[in-house]
């Protein structure tokens, strides 16, 4: 280490003195080692290195001056006056605080926003999944929609495919009640999996093993793999946990393994339980997700081809409970599926921030160009006095670099702030426990861009101005004709470019905001006023239907007694909370079959409480009880599809029947007694889905594990606590889900769009601000430059209005050019917004007209303010200007 220090010192010292300096250093070092000890000596040595590096440039200068004879302009090495230049730069910033503030702020905004967004994108899109060889991991989904498989499809793929080294299926198994010794029960999120789940992911368990084929089979022993957190928190990290019996929903499971502490999965996993297909109604649905690992040497395309070949067999296996358009299944890289919809959004937002950065750089360039013009005299003077062009260039470069560094520093602070906002509001499932961090690469990139801009736009004017004979600019009123014109043109081009970029962003923001607004206006089909909802998960394997009825009545009773509660309804799923579908067919009309009919189990007052109109017939009544004839209500969509204008009342529907084939044990026919209005099903931006309603009392076959309660309330303080108490009274130990207002349920559908629109609006606003400043600056500068000319013209009789018009004409021309390019660019880019817009064409004419017009007005005002000064010019004073 000391050798390194000595080498550094020697390298920094000019050659003639190298030897004696090295000797002196060694002497001192030895002295210190003897008197103060080796560590003190080493510390001194490194301090000395720092000092020498600082002072060496001056030493070098002194040495050179000694050896040179002619007192010519010194060829000074770059490093020698770095400190000097930096200090000079900082002094000149203090002299022109306006320039500095604007330049730094401009850069900070551009760099800050960009860095933040890229950090998010890097974490979300570019970081690989935390599994070994993540590129081999595949998800198998429906070829047409990418959604989950039916159990039978998974089994066929597993049996027949040779493309995968391992494959496993999983399905969310809801919350299970874990009985903990000596404490209240805990609710943990269970994931039902087949064997090989962990093997496919490549994650070995921390303890024990994963589920075996025997345990996953119907009738097999109940086994469970616990998550590390559950093992630690509820079992005290007991090393003897394997083989212990734990009770999940009162069913005893043997603990066979524990997951590693850093296990990550796109959804919350507290326990792995066996996924058993029982042939029950629930298994018909497409609700089983699949993960697989490509076998050695097999590519995605090859796997795709193989799976495509299974289409016929899959169709047959699903007993034709599929639409005509069914095309089997297809593989998709798991990483892409995890990131999912967010990709498009993130790329879009990144594009927006890139625009902002460009605008910021353009602004900086304009500022620098203007400044260069202002310093023409200073430059000429210094050159005339013997300064070297190189020194000047170096000094100005240092200045620009300082601005860039300051801007980047401020930008970092902004980036941190933006990241806070984005990561708390964006519901991203990021494949990294560390989450989103400020990314060094991007900061370096942004800083680099700013620096390059600074360098280019410092050097270019400098080169042009130093070429001219100095005496031209030293003349009174020194205007540089040639260079001045080029610079002015460059400035105009830059401002026009800024305008183009900004107007593109503004149009994008306007489109997104309008789209959000239209989505908000969508008719829901029901009223949310005063409605509050919560769920109570039911374990159907333990509670028979009779028990469920008692439960529902007991709870409903107590809920009604809460002050402020006007009415209570029950259903399996409220609108916009999910989907639950099954094949269904019109009685005796096999051609009227729907594969994914939404089924809603409801209490009789459901339609009333939600404000859903019953267009024909009647709603359910108390008389539609367990033993009574099976009835159903269809919604408008079904009525239109199956009956068109005829009356559905009295006709029959059969759930579980599809194209004449019965898919369940008894697909009983139900008589239609009413037609209800359409409501939104799972998504706000999708049309209502065909739905059949069944009375709660007649619903045994549809063992939904969830019961949702809807309360119509008026002024009910402390409702959440009272609800919990009511349920606890009626059914001790029953889990109660979070209480939410229906407005919140609807609102959560809007949150992502709202975030996009807000971010875009912010970017657009920032760029508008930057461009306005740019325009203002350009016009103000032009006015200042031409004060004399204006004075002359006014002295010759020109009217202020005419002069004003002349000045404005220039800036309006720039703006118009920029707008034209911007609108064209926006039209081209808008296509990529297609997927994000609701009910709005990407080339919406009103937006494309209104935004540029608005921009033109703003630009006019920005130009008008400095231009008005022109009218106040006193010709006498103007003519005297230097």
């Amino acid at each position, binding site marked *: 280490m000391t050798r390194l220090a000595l080498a550094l*010192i020697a390298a*920094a*010292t000019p050659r003639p*003195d190298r*030897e*004696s*300096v*090295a*000797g*002196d*250093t*060694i*002497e*001192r070092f*030895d002295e210190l080692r003897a008197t103060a000890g080796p560590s003190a000596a080493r510390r*001194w040595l490194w*301090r*000395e290195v720092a*000092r*020498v590096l*600082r*002072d*060496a440039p*001056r*030493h070098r200068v*002194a*040495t050179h*001056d*000694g050896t040179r004879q002619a007192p010519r302009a010194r060829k000074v090495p770059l490093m020698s006056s770095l400190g000097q230049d930096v200090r000079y730069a900082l002094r000149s910033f203090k002299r022109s605080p306006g320039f500095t503030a604007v330049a730094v702020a401009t850069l900070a905004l551009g760099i800050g926003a960009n860095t933040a967004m890229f950090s998010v994108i890097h974490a979300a899109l570019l970081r690989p999944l935390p599994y070994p060889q993540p590129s081999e991991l595949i998800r198998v989904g429906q070829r047409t929609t990418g959604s989950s498989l039916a159990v039978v499809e998974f089994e066929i793929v597993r049996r027949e495919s040779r493309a995968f080294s391992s494959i496993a299926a999983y399905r969310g198994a809801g919350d299970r009640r874990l009985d903990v010794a000596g404490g209240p029960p805990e609710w943990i999120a269970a994931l039902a999996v087949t064997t090989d789940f962990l093997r496919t992911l490549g994650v070995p368990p921390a303890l024990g093993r994963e589920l075996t084929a025997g345990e996953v089979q119907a009738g097999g022993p109940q086994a469970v793999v616990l998550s590390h957190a559950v093992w630690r928190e509820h079992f005290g990290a007991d090393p003897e946990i394997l083989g212990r019996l734990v009770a999940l929903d009162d069913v005893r499971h043997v603990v066979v393994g524990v997951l590693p502490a850093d296990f990550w999965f796109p959804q919350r996993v507290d326990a792995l339980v066996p996924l058993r297909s029982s042939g029950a109604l629930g298994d018909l649905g497409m609700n089983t997700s699949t993960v697989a690992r490509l076998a050695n040497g097999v590519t995605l395309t090859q796997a795709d081809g193989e799976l495509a070949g299974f289409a016929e067999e899959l169709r047959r296996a699903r007993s034709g409970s599929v639409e005509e358009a069914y095309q089997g299944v297809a593989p998709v890289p798991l990483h892409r599926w995890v990131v999912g919809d967010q990709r498009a959004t993130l790329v879009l937002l990144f594009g927006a921030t890139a625009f902002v950065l460009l605008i910021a750089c353009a602004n900086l360039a304009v500022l620098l160009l203007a400044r260069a013009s202002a310093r023409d005299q200073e430059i000429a003077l210094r050159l005339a006095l013997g300064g070297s062009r190189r020194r000047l260039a170096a000094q100005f470069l240092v200045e620009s670099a300082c601005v860039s560094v300051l801007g980047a520093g401020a930008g970092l602070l902004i980036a941190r702030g933006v990241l806070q906002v984005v990561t708390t509001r964006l519901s991203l499932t990021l494949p990294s426990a560390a989450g989103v961090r400020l990314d060094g690469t991007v900061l370096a990139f942004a800083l680099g861009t700013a620096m390059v801009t600074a360098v280019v736009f410092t050097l270019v004017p400098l080169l042009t101005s130093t070429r001219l004979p100095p005496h031209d600019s030293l003349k009174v009123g020194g205007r540089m004709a040639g260079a001045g014109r080029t610079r002015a043109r460059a400035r105009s081009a830059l401002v026009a470019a800024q305008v183009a970029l900004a107007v593109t962003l503004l149009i994008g923001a306007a489109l997104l905001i309008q789209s959000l607004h239209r989505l908000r206006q969508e008719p829901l089909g029901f009223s949310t006023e005063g409605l509050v909802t919560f769920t109570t998960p039911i374990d159907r394997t333990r509670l028979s239907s009779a028990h469920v009825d008692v439960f529902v009545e007991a709870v409903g009773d107590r809920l009604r007694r809460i002050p402020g509660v006007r009415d209570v309804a029950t259903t399996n799923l409220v609108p916009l909370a999910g989907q639950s579908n099954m094949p269904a067919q019109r009685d005796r009309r096999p051609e009227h079959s729907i594969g994914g009919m939404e089924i809603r189990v409801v209490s009789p007052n459901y339609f009333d409480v939600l404000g859903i109109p019953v267009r024909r017939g009647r709603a359910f009544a108390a008389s539609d009880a367990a033993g009574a004839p099976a009835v159903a209500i269809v919604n408008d969509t079904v009525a239109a599809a199956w009956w068109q204008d005829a009356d559905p009342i009295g006709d029959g529907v059969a759930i579980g029947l599809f194209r004449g084939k019965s898919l369940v044990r008894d697909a009983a026919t139900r008589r239609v007694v009413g037609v209800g209005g359409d409501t939104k099903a799972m998504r706000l931006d999708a049309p209502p889905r065909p739905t059949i309603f069944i009375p709660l009392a007649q619903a045994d076959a549809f063992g939904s594990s969830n019961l949702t309660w809807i309360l119509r309330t008026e002024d009910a303080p402390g409702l959440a606590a009272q609800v919990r108490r009511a349920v606890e009274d009626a059914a001790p130990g029953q889990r109660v889900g979070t209480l939410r207002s229906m407005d919140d349920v609807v609102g959560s559908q809007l949150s992502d769009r709202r975030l996009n629109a807000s971010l875009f609006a912010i970017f657009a606003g920032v760029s508008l601000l930057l461009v306005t400043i740019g325009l203002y600056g350009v016009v103000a500068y032009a006015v200042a430059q031409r004060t004399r000319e204006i004075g002359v013209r006014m002295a010759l009789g020109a009217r202020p209005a005419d002069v004003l018009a002349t000045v404005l004409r220039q800036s309006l021309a720039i703006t118009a050019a920029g707008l034209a390019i911007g609108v064209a660019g926006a039209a081209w880019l808008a296509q990529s917004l297609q997927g994000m817009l609701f009910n709005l064409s990407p080339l919406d004419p009103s937006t494309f007209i209104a935004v540029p017009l608005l921009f033109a007005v703003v630009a006019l005002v920005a130009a008008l303010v400095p231009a008005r000064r022109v009218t106040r010019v006193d010709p006498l004073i103007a003519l005297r200007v230097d």
Partner: protein
Amino acid sequence: MRLGPDAYGATIRREIETHARRELSISAVYTTLQRLEQKGLVRSRIGEPTPERGGRRRKHFELLPAGARALKSACDAFAGMTAGVERRLKTLG
């Protein structure tokens, strides 16, 4: 001046550090001495290699008559400026 014939880089630095009571880089010492040499106030010569310094030679500096005169006039000027101030500084403590 104080060091006499023993005045070379390391010793000069040590002397200044002792009296100025702060650390100094070797480059700063050489720079100043070089400037003095250019102005003709000191003279340098390379000495013999010594085993303690790993065989490296020392660069000795010697005060020239012109330098001695310059030093004297600087001291006089300083003494003139501080005359009387010393007493007052003592009372300030």
